[in-house]
């Protein structure tokens, strides 16, 4: 066997060295010169290909000195084929024309899975995401990602994304290069991102290259789309619960463009009648609950081209959520009524300015300044209103978490040699963390938020530098070698880390590759989760002198293959991973959500390990596309202070996960989609045994036996919930009208109305003790109506 492999390797070497080889490189942009990152570049008939980088640059190496036909394609743009005789290394800069969005499905050739040195990369095109079934009439980027192997949403109502057994805080989510701390609206029902404003989303699930840092598990990289430099377009969409719109166009034709989008929910219009319906039917409560839900967001992107070599872009984002409710209990006997008021809100702000400059044909520079802010607040108020004098008295639990980052980044990328593509950069982040909870008394209703005195502020200075080289060692071997260094200072504590990042791609044939990666990661900011479902109530906390940063080591091994068939391509990937974490955070046993204690006294640092395998078979075609994915995984945690110091399964230790996604263009203008997902149930902690405990809260403790008033949970996460599975269906009808494109979208969420578990609780119903399961969403039909207007000024002139 060894001899056979050696022969294979040697024959590859000899074959590679015997042929004259050339390199073709260059840049892919749109007709206005804006870089098109992620554009597919492949050599027709050979299967060789790559994708363009962040500045649109690409490079194809080891091509035969022969007649070549290279195809460039990018979503929303007309593919372009360039044929020539390559006798030497050649530079080809391509400008792709924007395709008229006339309702025809726009297709992009997907980057070839074997060419990329990284493994475990999921790259979804917006056109693909928009075809997936919509929840409440709206397609969603983060929900689409959870349909891929190794990525899960945890549970319904969860705001976090869980990748390969990691917690949501271990995923780096970048919007135009700036990390975000929250990615969801309204308990995960909607993601933070308006799909129309995003050009590309890519998830790296492990083996991260050196340019990424600050998180342990994965990277989700979202690029905001630049506005059209030639014509004005607009789109509006109205769904059951939300309305959204965006507009784009030139501010100065050919050089400056804008793109603005906004969304607003009107869930409140539905919430109260639905609540009354439920209350009336179930006779659970009278009319004294006033619920409130809502979210809003807005995007703005400005692009300006100074010259062919220099561009600048501004990205702005604002998102706001609020969930509140008020329960009033009037009393006829007592001279008072009680009011319970729950008010939770969170807000995300982001702004960045990016300057891109081509220093010369081989080197690019990107400089970025940015700020990101996440502000979360909860108030639980319990107020008594005295009828005698209408005075108020009560107390409020106030709980808040705020984190603000200021970023400065400088990156260089280029090709010093035909076999090397190098990136190097430096960045600085100033973190400002504020996290605390307090209790205070109030005399007003609604209670006024009182800024808690003496809230500790943690100011962290996070300086990183990286260098990485994508090195074509031989025609069959590519290596990504890099190092990421970080120095983090908070108060008087200083932490540092040097992280090697190594990736190897062995390509014995053009159709398949074996890839491996090893990485060290470092995370100075983590999350303490109260409920374990990624609620905004989770507290973002910095490393401090008492709480050291988290570190991890990860090894990944994978096989990628593709097989071109007529008008379509089949891709296959199989990845295995093992990750070891040191310093993972968890609340200690008995910690309560609202507590006056310093969070550092309630946090336990421990170890984690996660391992598993993922399989994916994907077809991308003109008529139908889709994939089948399977995940087998394990994830465990261990803390000295919890579970007697023994290992226990992480809440999202999901043993099996299956995803089937399918979209079919029945005929022009009509497309059908379906997705089905299955996941082993999550772990929760439930008491299983009751016994008598001694009562120690009276003044005669020794002579009292408390009855069966103590419970034993045996171990942390001792009960696995029922499995989660769900089928979503969607169909969309598009029609070109005089004014633009009209789209009707009809979708069914949870088509067979599976009661998926959200939480379990022990309920004592008139002495009958039961284990009850709470599910959130039964079958939910949804529809939306969209209007897309293109080249608005041109049309008005014609009129």
């Amino acid at each position, binding site marked *: 066997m060894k001899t056979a492999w050696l022969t294979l390797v040697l024959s590859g070497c000899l074959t590679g060295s015997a042929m004259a080889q050339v390199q073709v490189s260059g840049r892919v942009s749109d007709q206005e010169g804006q870089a098109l990152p992620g554009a597919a570049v492949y050599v027709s008939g050979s299967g060789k290909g790559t994708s363009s980088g962040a500045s649109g640059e690409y490079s194809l190496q080891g091509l035969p000195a022969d007649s070549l036909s290279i195809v460039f394609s990018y979503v929303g743009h007309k593919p372009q084929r360039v044929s020539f005789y390559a006798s030497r290394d050649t530079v080809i800069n391509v400008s792709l024309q924007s395709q008229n969005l006339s309702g025809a499905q726009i297709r992009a050739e997907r980057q070839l899975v074997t060419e990329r040195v990284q493994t475990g990369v999921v790259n979804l095109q917006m056109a693909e995401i928009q075809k997936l079934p919509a929840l409440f009439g709206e397609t969603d980027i983060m929900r689409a990602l959870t349909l891929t192997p190794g990525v899960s949403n945890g549970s319904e109502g969860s705001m976090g994304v869980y990748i390969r057994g990691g917690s949501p805080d271990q995923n780096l989510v970048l919007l135009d290069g700036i990390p975000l701390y929250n990615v969801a609206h309204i308990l995960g029902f909607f993601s933070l991102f308006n799909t129309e404003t995003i050009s590309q989303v890519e998830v790296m699930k492990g083996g991260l290259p050196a340019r990424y840092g600050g998180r342990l598990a994965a990277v989700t990289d979202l690029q905001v789309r630049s506005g059209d430099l030639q014509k004005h377009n607009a789109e509006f969409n109205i769904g059951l619960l939300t309305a959204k719109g965006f507009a784009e166009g030139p501010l100065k034709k050919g050089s400056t463009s804008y793109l603005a989008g906004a969304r607003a929910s009107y869930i409140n219009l539905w919430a109260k009648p639905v*609540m009354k319906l439920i*209350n009336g*039917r179930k006779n659970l409560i009278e009319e004294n609950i006033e*619920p409130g839900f809502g979210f809003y967001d807005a995007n703005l992107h400005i692009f300006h081209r100074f010259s062919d070599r220099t561009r600048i872009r501004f990205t702005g984002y604002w998102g706001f959520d609020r969930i509140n409710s008020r*329960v009033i209990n009037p009393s006829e006997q*007592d001279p008072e009524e009680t009011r*319970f008021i*729950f008010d939770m809100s969170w807000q995300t702000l982001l702004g960045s300015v990016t300057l891109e400059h081509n220093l010369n044909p081989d080197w690019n520079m990107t400089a970025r300044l940015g700020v990101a802010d996440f502000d979360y607040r909860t108030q*639980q108020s*319990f107020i*008594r209103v005295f009828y005698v004098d209408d005075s108020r*008295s*009560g107390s409020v639990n106030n709980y808040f978490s705020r984190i603000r980052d200021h970023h400065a980044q400088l990156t260089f990328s280029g090709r010093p040699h035909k076999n090397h593509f190098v990136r190097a950069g430096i960045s600085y982040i100033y973190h400002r963390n504020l996290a605390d909870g307090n209790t*205070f008394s109030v005399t007003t209703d609604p209670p006024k938020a009182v800024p808690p005195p003496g809230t500790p502020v943690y100011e962290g200075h996070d300086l990183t530098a990286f260098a990485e080289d994508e090195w074509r060692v031989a025609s069959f071997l590519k290596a990504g070698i890099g190092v990421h260094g970080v120095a983090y200072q908070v108060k008087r504590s200083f932490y540092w880390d040097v992280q090697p990042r190594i990736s190897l791609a062995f390509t014995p044939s053009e159709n398949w590759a074996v890839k491996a990666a090893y990485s060290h990661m470092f995370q100075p900011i983590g999350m303490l989760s*109260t*409920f374990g479902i990624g609620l905004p*109530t989770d507290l973002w906390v910095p490393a401090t002198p008492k709480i050291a940063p988290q570190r991890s080591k990860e090894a990944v091994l994978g096989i990628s293959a593709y097989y071109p068939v007529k008008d379509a391509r089949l891709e296959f990937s199989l990845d295995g991973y093992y990750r070891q974490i040191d310093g993972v955070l968890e609340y*200690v*046993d*008995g910690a*309560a*959500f609202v507590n*006056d*204690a310093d969070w550092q*006294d309630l946090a336990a640092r421990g170890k984690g390990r996660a391992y598993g395998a993922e399989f994916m078979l994907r077809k991308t075609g003109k008529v139908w596309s889709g994939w089948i994915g399977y995940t087998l995984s394990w994830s465990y945690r261990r803390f000295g202070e919890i579970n007697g110091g023994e290992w226990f399964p992480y809440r999202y230790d999901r043993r099996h996960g299956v995803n089937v996604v399918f979209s079919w263009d029945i005929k022009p203008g009509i497309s059908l989609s379906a997705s089905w997902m299955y996941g082993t149930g999550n772990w929760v*902690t*439930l008491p*299983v*045994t*009751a*016994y*008598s*405990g*001694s009562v*120690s*809260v*009276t*003044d005669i403790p*020794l002579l009292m*036996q408390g*009855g*069966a008033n103590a*419970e*034993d*949970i045996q171990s*942390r996460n001792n009960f696995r919930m*029922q499995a989660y599975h769900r089928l979503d269906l969607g169909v969309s009808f598009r029609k070109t009208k005089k004014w633009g494109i009209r789209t009707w979208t009809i979708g069914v969420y949870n088509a067979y109305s599976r*009661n998926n578990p959200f*939480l379990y*609780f*022990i309920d004592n119903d008139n002495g*009958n003790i*039961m*284990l*009850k*399961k*709470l*599910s*959130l969403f*039964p079958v939910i039909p949804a529809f939306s109506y969209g209007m897309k207007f293109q080249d608005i000024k041109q049309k008005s002139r014609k009129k």
Partner: protein
Amino acid sequence: MKKRYCLYLLIVFFASCIKDESDLLPSAVQKPVLNALVTPALPFIAYADLSKGILDTSSVLPYAEARLAIYENETLVDSMMYIDSLGLYIARQFTFPQAGKCYSIKGSYGAYPLLSSGTSCVPVQVPIQQLILDTAFSVEDNRDTYRVGVQFGDLSTPGDLYQLSLYRYRLNKQGVWELSTRCVRSAWNAEYNDRELCGGLYFSDSYLSSGVSDMIWLDSGIRPSAAHHHDSLQLIVELKHTSAEYYQYALTYAKYLRNKGSIFSQPAPIYSNISNGYGIFGTLHSYRDTIVF
């Protein structure tokens, strides 16, 4: 109250999606239970019963057939006899625990595996040196408040553990003192706040730096109705000098009671030092002072 409202709201919002899934819960293994919190003020006593499944609605199962014995450093001190239908056992020779000595309990519960406790040493009594009461209600943060200052005796042994409890009794119209509250909230140094639970303040004297042994107890609550303003109050302040076993048990049990039913709290397992069973064997030495005003 508040934590239950959170769950209550959640249930009301999604009431149509609640199902009984009791069949899914794994059956619990029945184990013997032994609870014995002993003090030099009383002979050794213990409670014996059996655990049950969490969904079992039957009452506690007192166990009358247990054979329990008290040991001091593996030497038998006394055996225990069953005296009460509630599962109460008492030392057959009315042996009293003695301060400074270390004890354990062993027992057999019929066919169940032999049960044994860890060792617990009886602490010495630490007196409250002085109580200083400001009987005038003052209004602080809109709460009717009165102050109780507690001055301890010698707390000079580093690492010793204490529970300080305040029991407030109100004289009712029939002239009987009734316990008006079990969980007295008090304001204290924020460093100890997580130790302030039902049952009082749990603390180690290692927290009391530089020999400071006074604390001011700010007893307050949501404003009582006007009719209660002129009631007589009786305050009992109790300082329990506790063994590590009792301290761990009392603290974890209080947290368990606080977090029970809350979806926003971490599970709070109750400390136990009983092998092959549930429960606690712990020792303490308490000192009480009473003020009536």
